[in-house]
């Protein structure tokens, strides 16, 4: 786990016109399944969390500022998934939740 307090974030935090502070950062982050991907993941997560709180939930659909960081992160993590043979290929979205009996 790494500590994510960066100068950029601190200046963001003190910026009077941004309400990024209301959602705030958690100090530590989780490791990626690909050991080499954790830094890329952190960069993407920071971008995403801000976009999610400030744009997406508020209905702002102007572009995706995280596209490039996501692309780099994915290139790394998908490689790690292949190397570790994690069986996610062809697993349907919301996959196994076919109509299930209740009790």
């Amino acid at each position, binding site marked *: 786990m790494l500590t994510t307090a960066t100068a950029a974030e601190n200046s963001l935090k003190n910026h009077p016109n941004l309400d990024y502070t209301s959602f705030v950062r958690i100090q530590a982050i989780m490791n990626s399944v690909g050991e080499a991907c954790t830094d890329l993941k952190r960069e993407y997560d920071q971008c995403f969390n801000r976009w999610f709180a400030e744009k*997406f939930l508020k209905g702002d659909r102007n572009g995706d500022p995280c596209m490039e960081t996501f692309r780099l992160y994915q290139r790394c993590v998908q490689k790690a998934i292949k190397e570790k043979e994690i*069986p996610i290929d062809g697993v349907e979205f*919301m996959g196994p939740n076919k109509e299930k009996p209740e009790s």
Partner: protein
Amino acid sequence: MVKYYCCAGLLKSTWDQVCIAFWQRYPNPYSNHVLTEDIIFREVTPANCLISRRLLTKTSRAPRWMERYLPKHMASSAYIIEDSVVDPQKRTMTTLTWNISHARLMSVEERCQYRINPENGSWTEIKREAWISSNVYGLTRAIQEFGLARFKTSVTKTMKGFEYVLAKMQGETPSRTLAETATERARETALAAKEKAKDLASHAQKKQYV
């Protein structure tokens, strides 16, 4: 045969805050069993919903009595997939989480629906459902019972972790007192002792029949 379980949960934070916290809830003091976390798919749909797939690695330890039925060098961690849909128009979030490792032994699928609490608009309620199944001949029921008990324990941890992260986001100092930590440790020790006792008891019983 599938075992079904359903329960309701309440978080005293707004739906927006809960969704924001959802993406940042690891690590927290109650999530030591979560080893890695990744987003492996994400898209905004034409209907403006955010769909994501998260891949988690968690430690997965079987109880002693189960160990002898398992492969000798079974991995002590499991891969978990968590799919989710966030609908900002309806203010709903639905998640579906299931294990893709050891699934023949035991499969746990969980569905959570997060929505604004109808009685208090600044709170969020969670409807949590789980389906637990096992295909181990002769042990299905025992494994399902174990799975359900462990699931219930993990729900408590999940909620505590969520509350911790929400409190931290809102600038409070989350209260996890030393006493609480000690109590939890004591509980875990007691549980381990109980497992051991059961194990010994079943060995003793077997010996009688030899």
